[in-house]
């Protein structure tokens, strides 16, 4: 089962590439010319999202540097203990939606200090693997088309992250506790 999953993961892009290019050749599409026309936009898009990324990433860097995360963690940790959640996973829950590299760093930290077979490591792994960096996704996708009024998109993203955390804790409790 796991080998099969890894195999799919490895072959997905190669198969997509072969399919698209072959369809192009069969349909007599000038694939080299069309490729370069499409690829031209790569630079444009990347430059276009810079202002949005700067606003979000600078804001979040400042927030993390201020020690606000530790402050919130201190306030919340007694509540978490009641639900049988190890307090070393709390920073990960708080940073997950804000910063991808930050969350990865915290996860490595938990895994290295708690050890490979620890409950914290398993919970952290499931939380990290099942969610996305909400703020980054919003900045990139809305930035690419110049949307500034995002309506309820952020609320949904954060609520989904919260639901993910609750689900991760419950599943982990059932399987590994």
């Amino acid at each position, binding site marked *: 089962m*796991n080998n099969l*999953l890894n195999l799919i*993961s490895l072959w*997905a892009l190669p198969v*997509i590439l072969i*399919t698209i*290019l072959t*369809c192009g050749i069969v*349909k007599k*599409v000038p694939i080299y010319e069309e*490729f370069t026309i*499409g*690829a031209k*936009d*790569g630079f444009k*898009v990347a*430059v276009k999202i810079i202002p949005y*990324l700067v606003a*979000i990433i*600078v*804001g979040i*860097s400042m*927030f993390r*540097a*201020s*020690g*606000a995360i*530790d402050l919130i963690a201190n306030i919340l940790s007694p509540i978490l203990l009641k639900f049988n959640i190890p307090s070393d996973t709390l920073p990960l829950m708080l940073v997950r939606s804000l910063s991808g590299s930050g969350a*990865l760093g915290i*996860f490595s930290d938990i*895994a290295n200090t708690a050890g*490979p*077979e620890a409950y914290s*490591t*398993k919970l952290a*792994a*499931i939380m*990290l*693997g*099942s*969610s*996305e960096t909400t703020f980054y*996704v919003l900045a*990139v*996708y*809305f930035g*690419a088309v110049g*949307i*500034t009024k*995002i*309506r309820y*998109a952020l609320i*949904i*993203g954060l*609520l*989904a992250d919260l*639901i*993910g955390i609750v689900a*991760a804790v419950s*599943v982990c409790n059932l399987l590994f506790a």
Partner: protein
Amino acid sequence: MNYIFYFLVVSSIIIGAFTGKLNDVVNSIMSGAELSVKVAFSLIGIMAFWLGIMRIAEKSGVLKFISKLLEPITKWLFDELPPKSPAIGDVAMNFTANALGLANAATPFGIRAMEEFQTSNTKKDTASNSMCMFLAMNTAGFQLIPTTVLAILAGIGYKNPTEIIAPTLIVTSIAFFSAIIMAKIFQYLSNSQCVRIESQCERKSNIRISGDEEVGNE
């Protein structure tokens, strides 16, 4: 977005002043700005590659085929899209790449989808329902195989890292489907809230547009 930006900056400075980390906060402006440009520039190459490939997929009809295949689902998810919109193919590719843990490939597909959504968006600075639905799907981050996590676990000597695949799949599905349901609920709520105002606006703009044409098409 205005309040979020204000909150992030101002609360960081105030908290930083209290915790004595104000120096770090100020320094993080510099490093954060640098990081954002790095992130954007690191996207250029891979973005160009997949945008090029997707252009071929579009011209050869592969995208149209995928769109047709997924029409029953996407009609419900993105109900304001015109039928057979090429956005659906991009959404499908974005979802597939995300599910397989190929985040670098997913971003260009997602941006193409957003551009398609923008063409049928009436207010160009405001997110449409389809965009919010699409972003809900993306921020929830459905993943079939958590590639990075597995690599780290294997690296620290976790005996059987693949045992977390199944629980991760359960959690990620719960988050993903609840995000979709929430997006639909919010869409419904916001529609019923501004139905009066918007219908007035639409009527006005319809009159303006159809002023020279035949009236009463609708």
